[in-house]
C-alpha cells in the first residue's frame, strides 16, 4: 500500500529526529553534565598524573648532590640528540683522576618526551617531571643545564 508506506516513512523519520532532539534537549537542561575545565583558573585544583612526561629533570638532594656519573648512557639512548654530556676530570680523595660530570645539557626544544633516557640511566639520576607550563619567550631558555651549579655526585654512587 503506497500511502501507508508513505505515512510510515514520515512517522519514522519524525520519530528518529525527535529522539535526537531529546538527547540534546537533555544536555541543554542538565548543566551538571558540562565537562569544560576552566584551565588557567583551576590551577590550584589541577592535578596532573605523576608520571606525566613534561620535561627531564635531575633531582638534587639537600646537600646539592645528584646521582649522575656522567656515563653518557642517556646521550646515547636519546633518539634525536637532545642530551649532551660535558664531562671533566676530578681528582678524588685518593689522588686519582676520575671522570665526572661537568654539565648535563638538555635541549627541551628538541625533546620528544619518549622517556628512553630515563630508561637507560643506570644510576636513576634523571627523571621525567610533570611540569607542563614550559613555554618561554626566548628559545635559548629551552636549552637547560640539569645539574645545578656547584653540585656534585652523591657519595657511593658509581
Amino acid at each position, binding site marked *: 500500500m503506497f500511502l501507508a508506506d508513505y505515512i510510515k516513512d514520515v512517522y519514522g523519520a519524525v520519530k528518529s529526529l525527535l529522539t535526537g*532532539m531529546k538527547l540534546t534537549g537533555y*544536555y541543554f537542561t542538565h548543566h551538571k553534565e*558540562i*565537562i*569544560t575545565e576552566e584551565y588557567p583558573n583551576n590551577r590550584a585544583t589541577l592535578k596532573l598524573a605523576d608520571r606525566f612526561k613534561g620535561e627531564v629533570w635531575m633531582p638534587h638532594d639537600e646537600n646539592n648532590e645528584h646521582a649522575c656519573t656522567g656515563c653518557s648512557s642517556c646521550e646515547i639512548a636519546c633518539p634525536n640528540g637532545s642530551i649532551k654530556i660535558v664531562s671533566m676530570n676530578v681528582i678524588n680523595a685518593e689522588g686519582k683522576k676520575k671522570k665526572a660530570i661537568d654539565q648535563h645539557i638538555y635541549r627541551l626544544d628538541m625533546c620528544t618526551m619518549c622517556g628512553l633516557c630515563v630508561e637507560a640511566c643506570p644510576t636513576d639520576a634523571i627523571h621525567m617531571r610533570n611540569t607542563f607550563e614550559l613555554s618561554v619567550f626566548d628559545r635559548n631558555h629551552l636549552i637547560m643545564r640539569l645539574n645545578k651549579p656547584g653540585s656534585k655526585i652523591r657519595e657511593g654512587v658509581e
Partner: protein
Amino acid sequence: MFSLEGLTNFIHEWLNGHLPATFALLVEFVIVGVAAIGLFAVLGLGLVWMERKVAAVMQIRLGPNRLGPKGIFQTSADTVKLIMKEALTPSNADKFLFNLAPFIVIIVAMLILVPIAFARNFQIWDINIGVLYVTAVSSLSVIGILMAGWSSGNKYSLLGAMRSGAQIVSYELSAGLSIISIIVLTGSLKISDIVASQENGWWIFKGHIPAIIAFVIFIIAATAETNRAPFDLAEAESELTAGFHTEYGGMKFALFFLSEYINIFIVCAICATLFLGGWMPFHIGSWTAFNHIMDYIPSSIWFFGKTIFLIFVIMWFRWTFPRLRVDQLLNLEWKYLLPISMFNVLLMTLMAIMGWHF
C-alpha cells in the same frame, strides 16, 4: 503598566505639537530608521551570543564566558574585531557586484522588518498586504546570495550560491502554503487583523491538526529559507569551506552573518504572529478572568518571548542534526513537504468552510 504604545503616542504628539506636520513625519522617519538599525545591532549581537551559548550547553561545554558576565560582551568584541579587519576584495572578483551583495542581503533583511508587529499598536507600517509583502520581499535575499557567489570568482562560492538558489526558491512554496492555510482562517493579510483574530486563542490551538501540521512545515521551511543547519548547504562548511561567502572577510562577511540572524528573527516573528498570536497574550476562549491576568504581562514581552522560543527551536535543530545532501533537500521539499502542505491547505479550507475551528 509598561507599554510601547504609550511611548510612540507620546513621541508622536510631542513632535506634532512642536513641529509642522511634514517635519514631524520626517523626524519620525529618522527615529524609525535609527531604531531599526539599533534593533539590528542588538539582535545580531544578542542572537549570536545566544546561539553560542545554546550550542555550548547542548555540547556539554561552557561557551563564551570571559568577557562580561556569562560572556555577554563577547559578540561585541568580535564585531569590533571584524570592523578593524581589512575588507579584502579578490583580484578576480567582479568588484562592483562583490561589494554590492552584502548590502543587498542586509537591505532585504531590513525591508522585511516593516510590517512586523512588535507589541500592541507598535508597528512600523501596518500594510494591508502584510504577509504577502513579507513572502515577496524575503525571496529577494536569494539575489544577494547568488550575486555574492557568482562575483567572488571562486568555485566553492559558485556551488554554494547555486545550491542556495535552488533551495530558497523551492522552500518558499511550502512556506507560502503554510501561510495560506492560516490566511484561510483569518481572511486577511494584514498583520494587525491576524493578531486580532487570535484574541480568543492562538491559531495553533484553534486550528486543530491542520494548523499544527502547517506550523511544523513552516518551521522546517523557515529553517531552509534562512540557510540554517540542517539545510545549510549554501555554506556547508565541510563541503564548500564557507559556501557563498568564502571570499568575504571583515565587515562584509559580518553583514552576511548579521543578515542570517536577522532573517531567523524575522521568520520566527512571522511564525509567532501567524501561529502563536504575535503580541497577543495567551487567551483561552471566554475565560475572562484568566485572560485578564494574562493581559498584565506586556504585549512586547509576549511577542519577544514567543519569537525567541522559536529561534531556540531552530537552534536546537542546528545542533542536533547532520546536514542533508542537495538532492535529498529537494526531495524533502517536492516529495514530502509540498504534497503534505497542499493537502493541508485543502483540509484547512474545508475546516474553515464548515466552521469546525473554534
